[in-house]
Every structure is written in C-alpha cells, then in structure tokens.
C-alpha cells in the first residue's frame, strides 16, 4: 500500500559536504534500512528517491548530496517547510547476517546509520573523496574511514557479511571481492513504485526495476 504524506521539516543541517534533512515522521513508518522515500523537491517535475538515514523517535532523516536541481531544492528547504514523502518503498537490507560489515562510499553512506543501529553497531568501512566529505562519517559508529586515493575496497577485511552502498564502480568492486554481499544500488527514478520502468539496471544480463526489485540486490 502506497503511503504519501506532507511532512514538516524539523531542521536542515550541514554534515561535511552533505546536508541532513530532518522531517517529522507524521504517520509514515520508517521501513527497514535500505528502503527509501520519494521526496517532492520544490518546483521540480519529479520527486527524488532518498534512503532513510536514521529514524529517531518521531523523525525521518535523509542525507542529501546537492548535486543537481532536485537535490539542491531539497537542501534549500527550511525549518517549518513541508515536504511530500511517499514511502517506505523498495526492498531494504536483510538483517539476518552473522558477521555484518557495513561498506559505504561517498553519499552511499546515507542508509548506513539506520542500518548500523538496526544491526547493533557493527564495524563499518567508509570511503570518501575528500576530508570534507569524510566529516559525514561521524554519523556511522565504529567506522574506519579512508580518503582517496585510498579506496574503500582496499580496506575491507575478510570473513564478514558485507552490506554496501556507494557508487557503481565501488559496488562492482565489492561484488568481485565478496559474492553474496548485499548491495544497495542507485539509478535515476521517476515514480519509485514500479510504474514507469525508468530505473532498471542490468544484473546478470537481466533488467531489474530498482524501485520494486531493489534497491538492495544480492551480488551473487
């Protein structure tokens, strides 16, 4: 059942190079880590998919990288503004893992704080392209942080069940290292609920709609 509600913005905070949008949850459920909401960006035609960064009591947090007109519009929201949210959508991470290790790259750390809390603060490895971007690592407990030119995949120890989110080349590299890893992918989306077939990605020669079959897919 699709749930859509106008949420009130509680605060908009800078976290390193990113922006943390905090909204009152209203009657929406936060869903499981890795699930996402479509957030209506002011004066834009299409909403933007944002995974839940954290779900403290009564709130939903979204970590946003202002890279285009939609994300910039969301980051320009202020306290008391209203943002339409549809969700939670998609399939999140499976939490039945024995030795979890969270792996995040850049804005791909967005779902990891919520995931970390749900899994009891497991170890994490996070990679960023600059020290300023790396300031966002404060959101993820028990994290080892690397900054380019060191790549996050160089810092992944063996013997863990990997749950990862990050740019496509990083996810491809993680999949090589760890078949069976759970990977949260990203694609431009129009609807977020399976209507448009816009967000397909090719996995093992098959096209999958990330919004309803993902965004978390198994690497193997």
């Amino acid at each position, binding site marked *: 059942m699709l749930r859509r509600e106008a949420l009130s913005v509680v605060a908009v905070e800078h976290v390193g190079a990113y922006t943390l949008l905090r909204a009152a949850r209203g009657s929406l459920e936060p869903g499981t880590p890795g699930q996402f909401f479509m957030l209506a960006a002011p004066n834009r035609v299409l909403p933007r998919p944002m995974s839940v960064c954290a779900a403290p009591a009564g709130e939903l947090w979204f970590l946003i990288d202002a890279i285009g*007109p939609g994300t910039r519009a969301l980051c320009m929201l202020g306290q008391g503004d209203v943002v339409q949210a549809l969700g939670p959508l998609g399939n999140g991470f499976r939490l039945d893992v024995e030795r979890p290790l969270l792996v995040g790259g850049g804005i791909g750390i967005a779902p990891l704080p919520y995931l970390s809390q749900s899994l009891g603060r497991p170890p994490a490895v996070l990679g960023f392209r600059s020290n300023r971007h790396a300031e966002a690592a404060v959101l993820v407990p028990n994290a080892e942080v690397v900054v380019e030119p060191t790549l996050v995949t160089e810092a992944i120890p063996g013997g863990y069940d990997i749950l990862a989110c990050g740019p496509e080349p990083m996810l491809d590299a993680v999949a090589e290292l760890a078949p069976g890893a759970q990977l949260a992918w990203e694609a431009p989306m*129009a609807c977020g609920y399976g209507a448009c077939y*816009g967000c397909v990605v090719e996995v093992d020669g098959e096209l999958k709609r990330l919004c309803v079959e993902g965004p978390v897919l198994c690497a193997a």
Partner: protein
Amino acid sequence: MILNASGCLDALSAPEVAHGLDAFVTKTVTPEPRAGNRPVRIAETDHGMLNSIGLQNPGIDRFLDSVLPCLAELGIPIWTSVGGASPEEYAHMCERLDGRREVVTIELNLSCPNVASPDGDAAEIVAAARAATDRPLYAKLSAAVPDLPAVARAARDAGADGLSLVNTVRGLALDERTLTPRLGREVGGYSGPALKPIALAAVFACYRETGLPIVGMGGISGGSDALEFLAAGAVAVALGTVLFADPEAPRRVRRELDEQLRERGIASPAQATGIAHIARTSRAPVVAA
C-alpha cells in the same frame, strides 16, 4: 473519464493507483518481447521529463497468457496499447486481442519516439487494424508531424473510432558537467507540464477536423488542466508524468475537475467538451447559462 497515459502505470505493481482510474491503458504490447532501451532511461528537465523506456514488454503471447488475466481481476476496464513494425504486425496484434473480452478498447501506438518508426503511414496501419477487429480502435498520434489534423483525418477515414492525443515528443537533455547525453539512447520522449500547450493545440485542431472522440493528454497535473483539455475537445483525459510525482493524482484530478465544473455550473464533463470552439464575443468567465 480519467485514464492513464500508456506507459505511465503498471497496474499490477500499483493496483491502488489503477483503481482511481475509469480505465487502465496498458503499456504498449508488441508481437515479440522487448527488453527495452539500455539505461539511463529517465532525465528530468526544468519543466518536464524525458523517458527512454523503449516499449519494454513481455510480448503478446505472455501478455495474453499471464498479464491480461491478472489485469482483468482488478475489475477495471482495460485498454490495450499495441505496437508493431508494419501494418501487418498491428493487424496481427488486433486479431490476437479481438477474441479477448477483457479488452474494451485497442489503442494503436503509432508514435513512440523511443523506437524505430513502423513501416506504413498511420492510415495504412489503422486500415489494417480495422480489418482485423471490430473493437473500438483509438489511434495515438504525435503532435510532431507537419500536419496533424490531416493525419487524424486519414486515421478516421481508415476506420479509427477515436484519437489519443498526444504522445511524447522527441527531446534531448545533456549532462551539465560533461555536456554529453543524459539518456542511454541519447534522445527520449518529452512529457510533463511543458507539453500541455502543444497537446491542447493538437486536441483543439483534431476535434475540429475529425469530430472523433479524443482522449486528451500531455502535461495534465490538476483539475483545471483537465478542464482545458475537455474545453479544447477531449471527451476524456489521461494522466502521465503527474502519476510519477503523485500516485493519488487520479482521485485528486477527478475531485478538482468536479469542483471546477460545479463552480462554473457545468452539469457534466461531457457538457464541457468543445466549449473552446464556441464563438464568443465576451471575455467573461465561462459558466453555464
């Protein structure tokens, strides 16, 4: 009557959205399965969006065997959109659908900007389809032709029962940083608010030219947009891009349209159809006498 624009909704993925419609229009079905175009398939622009889905569909065999029975269970009248590479393929599709009572109308997609154009002109395709079925046939046309009313007239004369106006128009969006195409197939179909004046002009002209029933679509996001399409000559409207931003749009647009009609003293949507064509000397707001 409120429908979805073909391609803009998967009723099996979002049945509650489909239940807000008076009829559900399927994504275009083709003779063989199509994987669709390679990603990236979506690019928002300032006043609309581009899509390059490329008619992803399971093909007519699987559609008839496994998709159509599930759609029928939803209890919503089903319009089936069909595509093909030639008049013969369209005729074949119509023959296959002709025996299926679940399908109330066949829409001929004659104008997808994301795949190669079919052989044969609109009239030839409509004529071939007409010979293959007695079902109501709607021709879905693009405004991006030199003389749309002439195409619409030819479709009517070949046997079309109605028109679906308009399809998306071909557009291009470049990445602002790399200045390369944002879509995997480079160009895509442009839809959304910016398409509305183009679509209204198409409805206006084809209503006058053909007198056929018209499903108007292109940039409808609220009840006042829907009313304008009726005024230009549509008997029904279809929602496309707005469904992506607002899955509650079918019920909201219906509510807003009803309010608009009530405020103006217009008894029904049918009474609003074509009122833009009535010669008026006054610029006073339109309200029923």
